[in-house]
């Protein structure tokens, strides 16, 4: 018995030390890279702490990677943490950044109101806070700069794509929502406005939003929500999903019920898997966002702030529509 336990403990310790080994390697790497970069004109400018909304969604991983890369080029060390959609976890990250004395904090707020107290603490510690993709609307907090997508415009573009996809017949449309994120609320608002304007003065050929369901922004939830709606609305013609994962979930549901030719899907984001699906005709079109640019511009803003230059406090990047023909030309896809 006891011998086994000892074995387990040794395994546990090995794991612990193993992680330590990893870690010291990476810190060595960063120190050697800062050494080699000290030959170059880049000097160390401190640390940037980034608490991402969720690193399970590739979109935020792209932001994290571009932020890390751009940050390194400017001489920053970048720490990336995953808030896993939980504002409590995100607040812990911010507390940690403050006690580590970082030069700047970047977040995708997990809750646009409840993140307020944590940001207030950063403000009190004199550390600038930058938001990216998602905005914070809490009272009495100071956000140095925000960069994000113009989600309302993106929603309108999605509406245009839907009108184009359904043509003159119009039809019944399902919206796969993710209400927790204000960005998605904006997208659906834009989509609904565009569709309603299209419907004005039309007798037939109207586009009707017959259902609005939670798709969770996830494949599995988008899949089951779509299956349910197909039972209730067998004549569905279109689906607007607020992001690529839920759009792909919806496609799986359509395929399973043999309705992929009857129903057109409009997604959102333009992640790689989404673009691939557009190229293959699974999704009709996506208003695409530019997560890479968000990371780069955020670092630019941090540098501008520290240098004492002027910053645009809110920058919204318009989306662009990505159709099948764009997919055909895209060399990054298979």
């Amino acid at each position: 018995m006891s011998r086994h336990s000892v074995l387990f403990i040794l395994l546990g310790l090995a794991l612990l030390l193993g992680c330590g080994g990893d870690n010291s390697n990476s810190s060595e790497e960063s120190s050697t890279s800062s050494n080699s970069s000290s030959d170059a004109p880049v000097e160390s400018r401190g640390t940037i702490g980034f608490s991402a909304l969720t690193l399970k969604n590739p979109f935020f991983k792209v932001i994290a990677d571009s932020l890390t890369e751009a940050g390194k080029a400017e001489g920053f060390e970048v720490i990336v943490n995953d808030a896993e959609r939980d504002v409590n976890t995100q607040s812990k990250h911010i507390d940690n950044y403050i006690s580590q004395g970082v030069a700047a904090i970047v977040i995708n707020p997990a809750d646009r109101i409840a993140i307020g107290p944590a940001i207030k603490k950063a403000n009190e510690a004199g550390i600038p806070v930058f938001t990216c993709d998602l905005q914070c609307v809490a009272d009495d907090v100071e956000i140095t700069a925000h960069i994000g997508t113009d989600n309302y415009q993106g929603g309108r573009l999605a509406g245009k794509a839907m009108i184009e996809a359904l043509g003159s017949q119009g039809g019944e449309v399902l919206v796969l929502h993710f209400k927790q994120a204000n960005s998605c609320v904006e997208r659906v608002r834009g989509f609904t406005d565009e569709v309603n304007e299209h419907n004005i003065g039309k007798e037939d050929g109207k586009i009707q939003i017959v259902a609005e369901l939670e798709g969770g922004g996830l494949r599995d939830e988008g899949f089951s929500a779509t299956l349910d709606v197909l039972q209730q609305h067998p004549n569905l013609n279109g689906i607007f999903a607020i992001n690529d994962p839920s759009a792909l979930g919806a496609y799986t549901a359509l395929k399973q019920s043999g309705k992929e030719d009857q129903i057109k899907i409009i997604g959102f984001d333009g992640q790689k898997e989404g673009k691939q699906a557009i190229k293959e005709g699974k999704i009709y079109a996506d208003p695409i966002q530019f997560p890479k640019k968000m990371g780069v511009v955020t670092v630019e803003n941090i540098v501008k702030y520290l240098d004492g230059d002027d910053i645009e406090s809110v920058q919204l990047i318009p989306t662009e529509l990505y159709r099948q023909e764009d997919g055909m030309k895209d060399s990054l896809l298979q």
Partner: protein
Amino acid sequence: MIKKLLNSDFIAHYGSVFVLLLLCSYYSYATYGEQHPISPSAGKVLGKRIAAEVGDGSVLIVIRNTAGDRTFAKAIETELKARSVSVFGTVAGSPAEIRKAIEQAGESGQKISAIATHQPGSLFGPLREGNINKLREKHSALSEVQVVFPKSYFWPSFLTRENIVNVVNQNADIAIIAIGMTMVIITAGIDLSVGSLLAISAVMTAISLESFGGADASVVTMIACGVLGILACAVCGLFNGVMVTFFRVPAFIVTLATLMIARGLALIMAVRYQASLSGGATEGTPEAISIQADAFNWLGNGVTLGIPNPIILMIVLYLSAHYLMSQTAFGRYVYAVGGNSEAARLSGVPVMGVLIAVYVICGTMAGIGGVVDASRFEGGRPNAGELYELQVIAAVVVGGTSLAGGEGKIFGTLIGAMIIAVIQNGLNMAGVKSYEQKVVFGGLILAAVILDQLKKRR
């Protein structure tokens, strides 16, 4: 030899404390690095150094506009004045404001020989080497200016007072809920619903506070609203207890059902309330219901005698729970029911009453956790406490309580909660990437439990 060490009495009795110390020392080693002081004492030393080294001009102090920075600047100024070095002034603000102020200082023509700041300030653009050189050429008043800041020293960033207080404070809610969970698990039960109950309490407290008090709610209203949220959770705990005892439904199933029902109710309440705020115009979103009464954040974000209030609340609750479990008949009943409920019944222990009571206590603790959460985030979050049940159960088990019931210590749970907290914080501080963190976290919990289990297997 390792076997001998592991089998010694010391490890047997203080297994989890030992694990905690081991973790702390490891993380101290892993986070050992350069620290940059911004304290009044650092300011004093800096003042002395400037007085000794710097020439005849005056000194400009550059800081950020924060309370800590101002005491730092004050200390420099006092020290300089005591040594009759003239202080040009103190600039507090963002890099842009600092740049303007330095330009103005240059134009004033008064000779400035040093700019005193701290390490973060030295990274601000206007004070960096290239820009300072330009300023030296541009303004004759600044031609000999130097940027000076306190010398850095080496110390583990894990082992600072601020970080340790953070770790305990951030996890006070988990630790508080773990009190109730310990009692439930000692009776060989389980409560999966605690995370959802926390959300119910947070949302109810927020809604009632907004409805009855608004922005200028009195202290009595705040307490009443908090109590309302806690009571709601106690009622849910009562429901769990009744289901487990009278209907003989396994605790795992009952509380799994409560987990889902309570989460749903919290979301429904929040969404309905948001919809009613907008006059029914929109459907409402599952976001935090913000609490306007500023004083309400005292519980979650306030500090008493230098210690954050959630920590004080946690300690008071742990002391009471320890007393309850070790000094009262109720405590003995709880252990008796968990050890062998049939034997307990035959010797006259009111088994049903005890079981119902522990679930009510567990619900109440989750309710208190919810009020702390609402206060900390200045709003009731219907999504609060997701997956808390797992962290809480992990804390209890790591703390040495047996899932089979009958044994466990309240303070063991506190140590368990701190082990979980330290693992998470340490992984963040040591810069372990988030995907790897999950693997290491799971492995470390397993290792901690095994190490602690040794005392039973000897």
